[in-house]
């Protein structure tokens, strides 16, 4: 036991955070296991939200609708597509989902994942001297601060797109109270947006730590890694949402 304590003490000094190394049965990090379990649980959370959206798709009794064209005049009774066939072009409403704008925000979120992995790689390789003749790009790749901030900025940009989208929907007459589409759409994307918001705060916190004392070493790699796992998960959820809600009618 004495050896164990001595070893633990030695390790903790090496880490410099006063954390004692405990025996673990797998050699894996506790926090990482917990984050993966959390992500597994989140799958069910978004599954419930996405199911509800899909179940309620096409059941709204009043417009605006996501894709389908609705009669302005007889919106209240236009429950099914068949009823809409007789509408004159002047009576139709445009589908409310804005694919070009959402494609841009999707692209931004996907690229934020790239920035996130580069941030993690930068923290992992911190302390390794740059190879001789390293250019500006190599120096850039080695900067965890840059990539953490880049990820957070892209996340915030995505949120900006989302608030633009929400605002324009409200202007077009779709609120969370309007119809089933509004309720399920705003709740689903709002939940995702809340996850992105939490992620941005998390990233900014890491950025602040990086500025304050520099993220370095095994413990800090874990700190960034679990945030990265969460961030990528929020990203893959959006991959599913973009296809299922925006593109498929």
């Amino acid at each position, binding site marked *: 036991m004495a050896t164990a304590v001595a070893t633990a003490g030695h390790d903790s000094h090496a880490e410099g955070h006063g954390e004692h190394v405990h025996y673990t049965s797998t050699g894996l990090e506790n926090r990482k296991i917990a984050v993966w379990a*959390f992500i597994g649980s989140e799958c*069910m959370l978004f599954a419930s939200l996405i199911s509800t959206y899909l179940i309620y798709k096409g059941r709204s009794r009043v417009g605006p609708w996501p894709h389908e064209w609705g009669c302005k005049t007889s919106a209240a009774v236009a429950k099914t597509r068949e009823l809409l066939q007789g509408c004159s072009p002047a009576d139709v409403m445009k589908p409310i989902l804005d694919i070009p704008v959402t494609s841009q925000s999707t692209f931004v979120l996907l690229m934020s994942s790239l920035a996130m992995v580069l941030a993690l790689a930068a923290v992992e390789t911190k302390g390794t001297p740059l190879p001789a003749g390293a250019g500006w790009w190599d120096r850039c790749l080695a900067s965890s601060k840059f990539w953490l901030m880049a990820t957070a900025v892209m996340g915030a940009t995505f949120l900006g797109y989302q608030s633009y989208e929400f605002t324009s929907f409200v202007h077009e007459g779709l609120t*969370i109270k309007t119809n089933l589409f509004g309720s399920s759409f705003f709740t689903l994307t709002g939940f995702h947006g809340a996850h992105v918001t939490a992620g941005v705060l998390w990233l900014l916190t890491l950025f602040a730590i990086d500025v304050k004392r520099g993220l370095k070493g095994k413990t800090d790699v874990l700190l960034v890694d679990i945030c990265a796992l969460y961030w990528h998960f929020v990203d893959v959820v959006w991959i599913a949402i973009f296809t299922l809600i925006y593109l498929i009618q």
Partner: protein
Amino acid sequence: MATTAAPAPGQTPTAGGSYAAGEQTGIWSWLATVDHKRIGTLYLWTALSFFIVGGIEAFIIRLQLMRPNGQVVSAEVYNQLFTMHGTTMVFLVIMPLSAAFFNYLIPLQIGARDVAFPRLNAFSYWVYLFGGVFMTIPIFFGAAPNGGWFGYAPLTTMQFSGGLNIDFWVIGLQILGISSLAAAFNFITTIINMRAPGMTLMRMPIFTWMSFIVQFLLILAFPAITIALVFLQFDRFFGTQFYEIAAGADPLLWQHLFWVFGHPEVYILILPAFGLASEILPTFSKKPLFGYNVMVYSGIMIGFLGFGVWAHHMFAVGMGATADTIFSMATMLIGIPTGVKIFNWIATMWGGQIRFTVAMKFAIALVALFTIGGISGVMHSSPPTDLQQTDTYFIVAHFHYVLFGGSIMGIMGGIYFYYPKMTGRYMSEKIGNWHFWLFFIGMNLTFFPMHFSGMLGMPRRIYSYDVGQGWETFNFQSTIGVMIQGLGLILFVYNFLKSKKTGAVAPGDAWGAGTLEWSIPSPPPEYNFAQLPVVTSRYPLWDLKHPEMTAGLAHSGPDAMTVTDSHATPMHEETEYKNAADLGIPMPFPTIKPLFTALFLVLMFSGLLFIHLDLFPVALTIMIGCAAAFVGSLYGWLTSPLE
């Protein structure tokens, strides 16, 4: 851990109430504790208190139904009583009682010094306590939830339930879900990563195994009800239309989402009790558990299939022949692994040297009573039969045999079994016997006649009934049964409180059991194991003390062990209380931060109530203020060192 003056190393404190050397006492030590054993004890006390509340609710319900056209309480109060009885027993009693054992036992059984995240563990408890209080208080003001424990929407939407009652329910459950989820992530990590050297998955005690499965059920089932509750909250507070039939909503959405959660929840309630029985039966039969592997696999099967049977709660809504058939077959299928467990328990006792202690009696009662509940469950897995039984007292009889006969009997057995480990003293076997027989007879007298009243058509949740329908005798019997159970409960409470001071002193290995938790003193010192033992089989303590009992079990050879690991020593029995600091074991600091974090979280949720009262600015102030305080205390918690 900051310790008060410690006694000399090696000094054995007197058992019963006096905690291990170097531990603090007093109220602060409980508020700021991060020790899994103390948190387990807190869970136990809190859940037993709620058990008394839920029991009183049941008692009043039965008084009302004792005679035809009863007038004991008003119909409105009656609605609140049966809603809160169900909600309390499921979410505030059986789940937290199981959590008490998760907390207390999992680290001890796998040979760990604590759970993976001690402070998160404290947070889970405080969220549970505040959430439980939040849900329970309104009943004293006649404003308790009144929509049934499953809160079917659209009945629970603003249109049909305009009062604050349902708000308490929907917010309260959301809060309790957070507690369960946080605890589940913690235990999953603990079991995966904190096992002692040599404690492979297939050597873990069955209680830990069943708990492991339950944690997965929790993390995968609770999100579904979380979302269903979010929809209901949004409908009630923000005017969304998820359950608004006039807007085209489907009245089955809530039912499906609820039961996607609700059926795994059934296994969340029963599997820990199965685990406890699987610890008690081998110990008092002096035989290793029969068919350990099959026990584990059937537990996994139950957990896995548990996600594919939910719609059997909804046969009566008319889902169509295909859906009915699929869910009916899946339900019958799930009876197989459950039946396998029953046979394994019987085979464990077969040929054993059985000691009929109170704990053993409760465990055997679980086997018998759960079988009855299981069989009536298989009966309504068939849709045509179910159509006759659904929403009658037959269903009430079924799930009380499963939840009282199964879960509560198992948990009671667990309390008698582990009381000496927790307190260092035995509970009185004499009073315990009275408790057992009163519970056993009272329980059967209460719930068995319900099969008949149900078959005769008596509906569930009915406020009163008229004479001449053949229900009088059965209802009278049920009420007498509850009174007998009440006597048993009083004796139990007396025994529980009194034995802490005056019970016979128990040694570390109080019952001659074979698993790790019995190799350390009772009550365990704060660090649990001075030296982490190397485990070479499923019953390490029997290997040490009664090798003949485990001769037939697989053991790993010494070369395969990690004896060289500097963290561990060969399996041994620890009897001395030492000080963690003397041993050089780092212990987590006690901290009040999880309590405050939990408090702000609960207060933040309760701000929603003011939206209902049309005090929007007040609601906003409370919610934003508490959210900020929550995030602040969370940052404070995460940035302060653990140990």
